[in-house]
């Protein structure tokens, strides 16, 4: 297929349909609405279901129903809507139902604004719902990856029977770039565990209740085993010029693209600098960070938030070297110049005082 100029948001929906998605339940919110609008346009054409729900609460529960019935299903929203979906996500994870949720992040807290931020990291990656569960989280940085990672999201959702997020910010959702879609559409699969309303599946039950403490613990342990396997098998990240990097930048989504320019520019000035871009935020590329922490003398994390992913970087670095942070919010995206100024400042400081004291490492 041709490379075609298309908005990231639209790429998500088209790729989803090619990946076998046949149901979409959603509620409009900027900057994710194009996904919902594309679903309204295309799903009826392919014999699928589109429904604008009365709320995100209803939407995620319709997804619970559709997933129970064995359909590949998705929704899309942004911060405030994702907050409302957390109840349903916990139930989906507890009942081991696959689904895909696209979160095109905007500014918060509260109503915030509609400009791009990355401040849903905590509620999406750490799980904003109740109980010991995880959601798998993929973080595209281009329209092409919006398509590719959406297709992957459906695969992983089925493989792990768990909700999978495509987590992007408003910029990636709104921008157009050339996208090449998968060559061969996937036929919607059937699932032996689904409740389809027929004799073959009459004995099936979809539920997240385990009344007995031991039964619930066994269930939670089983989920946990699944997540451990996911951590072993599904980590994805991109490393850019990190071979000999002493200064390692970490950023995802739109920020990673800015950081790439920064690496280019500072490399041309002779800096030993590289970029680690997590593509899966859960499972987090802990091992890759840890490895680089052995060779680097400084990590610098940039986010469109006041610092959320940086916690995971610090956990992975385990104090091997200091971790600096630069964040912008409100829809402001730092310029490469701003980032370079920040790096010159912290890098200079570290060079001047290479010895790291314990307290500073944790609270840099």
């Amino acid at each position, binding site marked *: *297929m*041709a*490379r*075609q*100029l298309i908005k990231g948001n639209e790429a998500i929906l*088209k790729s989803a*349909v*090619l990946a076998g998605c046949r*149901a979409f*339940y959603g509620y409009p919110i900027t900057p994710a609405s194009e996904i919902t609008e594309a679903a309204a346009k*295309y799903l009826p*054409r*392919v*014999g699928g*279901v589109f*429904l604008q*729900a009365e*709320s995100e*609460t*209803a*939407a995620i*529960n*319709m997804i*619970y*129903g*559709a997933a*129970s*019935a*064995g*359909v590949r*299903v998705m929704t899309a929203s942004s911060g405030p809507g994702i907050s409302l979906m957390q109840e*349903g996500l916990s139930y989906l994870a507890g009942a081991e139902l696959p689904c895909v949720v696209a979160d095109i992040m905007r500014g918060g807290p509260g109503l915030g*604004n*509609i400009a791009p931020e990355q401040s849903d990291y905590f509620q999406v990656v750490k799980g904003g719902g109740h109980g010991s569960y995880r959601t798998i989280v993929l973080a595209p940085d281009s329209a092409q990856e919006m398509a590719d990672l959406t297709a992957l999201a459906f695969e992983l959702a089925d493989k792990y029977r768990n909700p999978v997020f495509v987590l992007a910010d*408003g*910029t990636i959702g*709104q*921008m*157009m*770039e050339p996208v090449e*879609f998968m060559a*061969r*559409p996937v036929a919607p699969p059937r699932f032996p565990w689904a*409740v*389809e*309303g*027929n004799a073959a*599946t*009459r004995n*099936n*039950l*979809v*539920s997240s209740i385990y*009344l*007995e403490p031991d*039964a619930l613990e066994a269930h939670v342990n089983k989920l946990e085993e699944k997540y451990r396997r996911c951590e072993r098998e599904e980590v994805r990240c991109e490393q850019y010029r990190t071979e000999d990097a002493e200064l390692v930048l970490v950023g995802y989504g*739109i920020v990673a*693209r800015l950081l790439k*320019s920064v690496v280019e520019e500072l490399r041309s000035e002779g800096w030993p600098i590289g970029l680690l871009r997590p593509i899966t935020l859960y499972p987090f590329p802990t091992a890759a960070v840890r490895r680089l922490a052995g060779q680097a003398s400084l990590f610098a994390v940039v986010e469109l938030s006041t610092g959320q992913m940086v916690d995971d970087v610090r956990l992975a670095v385990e104090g091997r070297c200091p971790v600096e942070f630069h964040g912008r919010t409100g829809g402001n995206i730092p*310029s490469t110049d701003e980032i370079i100024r920040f790096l010159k400042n912290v890098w200079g400081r570290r060079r001047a005082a290479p010895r790291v004291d314990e307290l500073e490492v944790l609270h840099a």
Partner: protein
Amino acid sequence: MPEPNVSAPPEGLTLIHSKAAAFYDHYERKSELQNQTHYCPGCGHGVAHKLLARAIDELGVQDRTVLVSPVGCSVFAYYYFDVGNVQAAHGRAPAVATGIKRARPEAIVISYQGDGDLAAIGTAEILHAANRGEAITVIFINNAIYGMTGGQLAPTTPVGCWSTTSPYGRNIWNEGYPLHVVETLASLEAPVYLERVALGNSKQVMQAAKAIRRGVENQVKGLGFSLIEVLSPCPTIWKETPVEAQRRVREELAQLYPLGVVRDKTKDAPRRPAPSFPPPLTALPELLDIEESETLAPPVPASHDHADWRIKVAGFGGQGVLMLGEVLAEAGLAAGLEVSWLPSYGPEMRSGTSNCHVRLSARPVDSPLVTQPNVLVALNEPSLRKFLPEVAPGGYVLYNGPEPPADCRRPDVRLLAREFVALADRLGDARVGNIVTLGALLEAAGVVEEQFVDRALARLVKQARLLDLDRKALAAGREAVHQEAPHDIP
């Protein structure tokens, strides 16, 4: 929730003896006492379960039935019903049922809910499922109290009645009046069948049996939304014997909540259209407006080896700012360049200004944000003021106006001021002012060859008349560059 140890039916309910086929023989999902239900003696849930199982038997739809159990005392309905089972979050059963029914229209989907579940936390879900006319059946058990959590106030608790959260009795100034569910839903157009029944004596139970059967049958016939409200005893929380509780259902609840059919459109309900047959997989790309490989971009022409265009287009909403950018990006793609296009979005658009960032590059585009443009297209003065300082030295600036304001000039950029929109107006349509400007940009800066721009326009402009006009506009823009103008900075 009190665990029962006897399941002797209360007086008046003895008409149901044998076990329905839609019940499991043995309740294996229960951890103990697998021969009896978890419901208290005299509980309305037990009776309603039997009536529903009967209806499923009689209609011969056991294999097709999917039961959605709620949160409440009937959370474990799936212990008993030998049908497909899905357990939902508190109040969300109608949304879950919607997802199932839409996915499997052949399934008989039944949402079974209590009054806290349906009439409090799930009010939005039931109202909208009813209003959409979802082709599901809802069994609504109204026992005027929260049973499972130990006797808190329900939206349906009568005024003055005690509960653990209305210890002085329900007070209209604090909790308002009891909610009448079937009457409320009857204000909607879509529901096909709404009836309220009671379990106060055997006559009422027989009517309830009929109503529940009717509710399921409607779905079997392919009709829309049916809901049966069942006034139901909860002797445990009411602190009454089963007999006393039944009397209360008969004499008090049925007075507050009148029994009977409040909606019956089963004769004249419009039929839902049958779902369409899905297209073959091979048809998907075309249905999704995805293009085939014939339109694949050609190899990069040598002249673009070092291309790195960082373009910002800005102006009023309605001036075609976003489209100008899109044409450039499409043309760049056709010319084999890497491209990106990023719009301003949301209220910014509505407030009347609009801009977009476009990159055309021989190398992969690192950042789609253009902070230091080497081309600025400013279709109005505010845009020129705002973005001129950002332009890289040596960059091109195209300004729609006779000349830039005196305080808005830079000697180190190549500025071209022309009245592009007025030119477009003379061509017959001010709306192609953006394309006139594009023509001038191509003439002044090159950027990308005409053939690719033409291809981009042909893709984006579907109307032949407009395409023709756009081509004229391009030419006019090119020409305009060569007219003398006092403020041109070469």
